[in-house]
């Protein structure tokens, strides 16, 4: 995402004498050729991106207006917005939304704190820099399902070492709501904190050293420098990292599937959509859940940009 937003700023912020000139003089063959080449080069990527997102999404909106199960194609029937009414009045939907929001808020908050601490360490160290960065990239690159299995087996009663290490006796982590969520959050946090910390490290590197030095001269304590100098100066980077991690966390699926399969009321919105469509093959109802999931992601993104005035031209990093 970093490159994109820098690109965005370049495009929007760049003065365009060339366009003005092009308007004054008739369009040259060369400009025409360039325009056509531009379209030819972007068209394939554009079409592939559109084909697998826009069309299926419109298809989902269409399907969500029907009562339709794959196993019973003859019973397909137009029901208007009734599927949405069914979903939105069901306690299960709201419980899943709550679970998803809880996981999102907890993981992103913890990741922000740990990620910031890691970024500050990585910003300082001279020796072993390479090794630290190499090892922190391993959770980033590892398959999410593998991370979920690792943590599941670490916590589980029969194979786990966690209870032994922390003297927790025979605590059955996956038999309770709270402890199951805790285990899921652990897996998510472990896997995605490195990404957060690399983004924050990039933001941290941009805080002018002179500011730090000046604050130190004026006798500012470490805490004052952190909260009055460092953090305000990297606000843009923090906000963008939080926005993209929030949207990513809200889609949580893999860890829930592997660790609890939705048991102990740990089902998330993504998992509900999957279960309705693939598990129950209730395409109409499942599509309604999908559309609602999509709308809530749009809502979160819009709310973030509006409330925190996230300047996307400041964005650093990607998903």
């Amino acid at each position: 995402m970093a490159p994109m937003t820098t690109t965005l700023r370049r495009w929007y912020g760049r003065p365009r004498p060339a366009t003005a000139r092009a308007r004054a003089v008739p369009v040259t063959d060369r400009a025409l050729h360039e325009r056509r080449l531009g379209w030819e080069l972007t068209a394939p990527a554009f079409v592939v991106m559109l084909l697998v997102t826009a069309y299926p999404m419109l298809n989902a909106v269409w399907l969500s207006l029907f009562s339709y199960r794959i196993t019973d194609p003859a019973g397909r029937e137009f029901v208007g917005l009734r599927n949405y009414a069914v979903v939105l009045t069901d306690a299960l939907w709201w419980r899943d939304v709550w679970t998803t929001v809880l996981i999102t808020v907890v993981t992103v908050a913890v990741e922000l704190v740990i990620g910031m601490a890691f970024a500050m360490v990585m910003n300082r160290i001279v020796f072993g820099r390479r090794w630290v960065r190499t090892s922190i990239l391993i959770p980033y690159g590892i398959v999410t399902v593998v991370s979920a299995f690792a943590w599941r087996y670490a916590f589980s009663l029969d194979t786990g070492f966690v209870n032994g290490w922390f003297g927790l006796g025979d605590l059955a982590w996956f038999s309770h709501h709270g402890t199951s969520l805790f285990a899921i959050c652990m897996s998510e946090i472990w896997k995605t904190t490195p990404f957060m910390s690399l983004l924050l490290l990039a933001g941290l590197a941009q805080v002018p050293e002179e500011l730090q030095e000046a604050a130190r001269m004026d006798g500012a304590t470490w805490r004052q420098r952190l909260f009055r100098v460092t953090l305000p100066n990297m606000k843009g980077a923090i906000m963008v990292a939080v926005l993209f991690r929030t949207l990513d966390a809200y889609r949580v699926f893999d860890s829930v599937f592997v660790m609890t399969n939705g048991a102990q009321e740990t089902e998330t919105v993504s998992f509900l959509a999957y279960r309705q469509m693939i598990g129950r093959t209730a395409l109409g109802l499942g599509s309604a859940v999908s559309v609602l999931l999509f709308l809530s992601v749009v809502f979160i993104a819009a709310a973030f940009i509006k409330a925190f005035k996230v300047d996307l031209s400041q964005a650093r990093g990607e998903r």
Partner: protein
Amino acid sequence: MNRRVAARGRGVGSVLGAILIVGYALLPVLWVLSLSFKQGDDINNHAFWPTAWTLENYRTVFKTPLFTSALRNSIGISLIATVLSIALATFAAYAIARLKFRGKKLVLAMALAIAMFPVVSLVGPLFNIWRSIGLYDTWPGLIIPYMSFTLPLSIWVLSAFFREIPWELEQAAQMDGATPWQAFRKVIVPLAAPGVFTAAILTFFFAWNDFVFGISLTSTDGARPVPAALAFFTGASQFQQPAAAISAAAVVVTVPVVVLVLLFQRKIVAGLTSGAVKG
């Protein structure tokens, strides 16, 4: 003097911090590795390390068709998706970075939107469409969605790298009579290769990591990738603990990740945060 003490304190602090980070990153990996070498009662010994080391679990997974075919699928699908996605992204990023044409903003806005897209919203409709056009449970059925979802990232990483290229060279080539296409192919592509490589690694990670499409759009060994197969893995027999075998399979799929990270650490960090330094 006060400062020197503070500086030394900082040195010790950062070494401790570094050890902490390495421990954080490697502990779960070591745990899966250790579990994959356990057998029999060791699996349930509630200890971190095995008392006796065995390769039995690796033998088991490589004798299990569910895993070997999944490994073949994962490697094939991920590599093909990476190559195709990078090819398309290279063209698009070049055009976005260098050419003047209308619709540029539309492509960038769409890339941003897709990066935020909740993937699960698509599996239902895709499941339905793929079934009706015969792409369900095939390699292309996974390659196509992987391409769409890695294109935004590749386009951004590549356009960031493309901005660093000395474009005078391209102009020089055009002065010498090369067409824009020739200038692109002969001059820019070799210069852009490192960026292309970085984008390729990140794309491969995405495809290798995918689980949602993997379980939703496949039903047999014909196309099911490893993350999806892991979720279905039950061990050699129903009486055997699948934990150790799954761990062995997990270690096998982690090997390419570790190798890529070890070899290209600098490139990956640069790709993830590209544009950040220049601002």
